[in-house]
């Protein structure tokens, strides 16, 4: 793991947030809330944790990332672009016909994506398949998958959770972007997940519960996952939906609604 100046990482996160707001404003549709909540985890993952090479995206021993909550793709696109995978200057083509930045992650347009997602609940299973293949081959590759909190209401997540613990897959890491809001409202009102840590623990996972916007806490969580052997680890990243933009924070309206031009300007001022 590289050690970076935490202020540089903070600046990186701000830049990613500006991309997210601008991309979605330009697209006039998309999911800002769940993109903004996942910025710190993805920033630390791509800048410090994963072994990857944008110039060699098919490197067999690379670590892999799957965005289970595919609707949050603006954050992934922005991070991958800033890491050199795809053009930064095309980010504002998000959701436009012919753009590589499709409405949900699509491998046909960006081959460096590890999976096409958008139907919730499938990413953890795909990560497991990759983890099994790596273990068979003695490949040091690790696979990370980010799940939405609403997403883990899907039954397949718990089929996969059972499988990963039973097969002692310690080369996969699940990250729950626990921002407490889903499309129709607050998770606790739609289908409460609590006690969430206990649920994962009872399924045989190592659980790390932390502040998903505290960069040092995020670093520590990934380090704890790397050190955990013999069982899979889930990182419960407690986050704020819409983080970084005052009027989007904790506001269910911005799960799946684009800001207006005026709201965008206001947001960019806050993120300057």
């Amino acid at each position, binding site marked *: 793991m590289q050690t970076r100046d935490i202020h540089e990482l903070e600046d990186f996160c701000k830049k990613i947030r500006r991309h997210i707001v601008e991309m979605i404003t330009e697209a006039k549709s998309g999911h800002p809330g769940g993109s903004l909540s996942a910025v710190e985890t993805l920033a630390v993952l791509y800048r410090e944790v994963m072994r990857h090479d944008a110039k060699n995206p098919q490197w067999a021993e690379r670590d892999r990332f799957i965005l289970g909550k595919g609707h949050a793709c603006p954050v992934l696109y922005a991070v991958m672009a800033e890491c050199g995978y795809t053009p930064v200057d095309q980010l504002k083509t998000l959701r436009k016909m012919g753009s590589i930045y499709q409405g949900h992650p699509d491998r046909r347009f960006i081959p460096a994506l590890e999976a096409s997602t958008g139907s919730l609940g499938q990413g953890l299973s795909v990560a497991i*398949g990759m983890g099994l293949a790596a273990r068979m081959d003695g490949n040091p590759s690790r696979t990370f998958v980010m799940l939405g909190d609403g997403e883990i209401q899907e039954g397949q997540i718990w089929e996969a959770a059972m499988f990963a613990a039973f097969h002692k897959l310690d080369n996969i890491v699940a990250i729950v972007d626990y921002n407490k809001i889903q499309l129709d409202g607050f998770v606790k009102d739609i289908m409460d997940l609590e006690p969430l840590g206990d649920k994962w623990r009872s399924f045989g996972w190592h659980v790390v519960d932390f502040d998903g916007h505290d960069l040092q806490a995020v670093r520590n969580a990934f380090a704890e996952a790397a050190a955990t052997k013999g069982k899979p680890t889930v990182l419960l990243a407690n986050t704020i939906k819409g983080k970084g933009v005052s009027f989007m924070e904790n506001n269910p309206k911005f799960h799946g609604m684009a800001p207006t031009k005026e709201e965008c300007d206001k947001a960019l001022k806050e993120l300057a």
Partner: protein
Amino acid sequence: MAAKTKYELKMGSATREAFGKTLVQLGKENKDVVVCDADLSKSTMVHWFAQEFPERFFTCGIAEANMVAIGAGLASSGKIPFVASFSAFVMTKGFEQLRVTVAYPNVNVKVVGTHSGISIGEDGPSQMSIEDLSLATALPGFTVLSPADEVSMAAFVRLAAAHNGPVFLRAGRAKVPVVYGPDQQFAIGKGIELLDGSDVTLMAHGLMVAESIRAAEILEAEGISARVVDMPTIKPLDNEIVAKAARETGAIVVGEEHLVDGGLGVKVAQAVALSHPCIMEFVGVTTYAESGTPEGLLQKYGMTAANMAAAARRAVARKK
């Protein structure tokens, strides 16, 4: 070339058994072949592979959706996963995963559905897969295979593994007659003329191929010359052999152990409409069946040589 001699149809093994045995051979030849199972290994007959290669066999418990998506992950990392279960379960409980995680990104997963059709017998309709071909052919990029006997199944297991892209391979529970000799060549996308004929073509897949051969013999005694074509590939369809049959015999009867609302019949009708419109009749399942012996069910629900012959007579009569 179509065979001139009469068929001696001797009873062989079930296609699921040929699948299970060939999989072991394939495992010996290719270390990338892996198998995912949902607690039916003794029925799908992947248990032989599990015994031989435990490190390449993944039991998923009774969780088909998870199993299909795990297969996608294995394939994305270079493995050739055979994901096997009863067709009724893997195609329905795993369908959304097959759509978004396998078909849409074109991932190299081999889905094997055993216990297809109503000839599974006593277990009844909840276990009988009569919609699987409708579902599989609905997925863009999928190759859909339904071999007729143990010889063709052995060949198609290998062809499926060698093919780069998603495949659905359909297998049956019941023992079926051996249609092919050991030297027969097979290819994905190619139908095979088993008997030549000029009045009508009997086109089938799975166990209806042997029934079609028997039907041709019944019809021959009545002075009706029936061509018999095995269509082990439902998708991509062999459009040439269909157009040739339409052009040369003027009538096609499609027989399949599947709902007539989907499957081979509608694919052939579409091909005929685009090439050489001709008289068509359809023999297959029209509703959910019941418990019974395989033979009794095929008789009651109309999937025997006699049903194929009756449909052929109707088709020939409609030509006039």
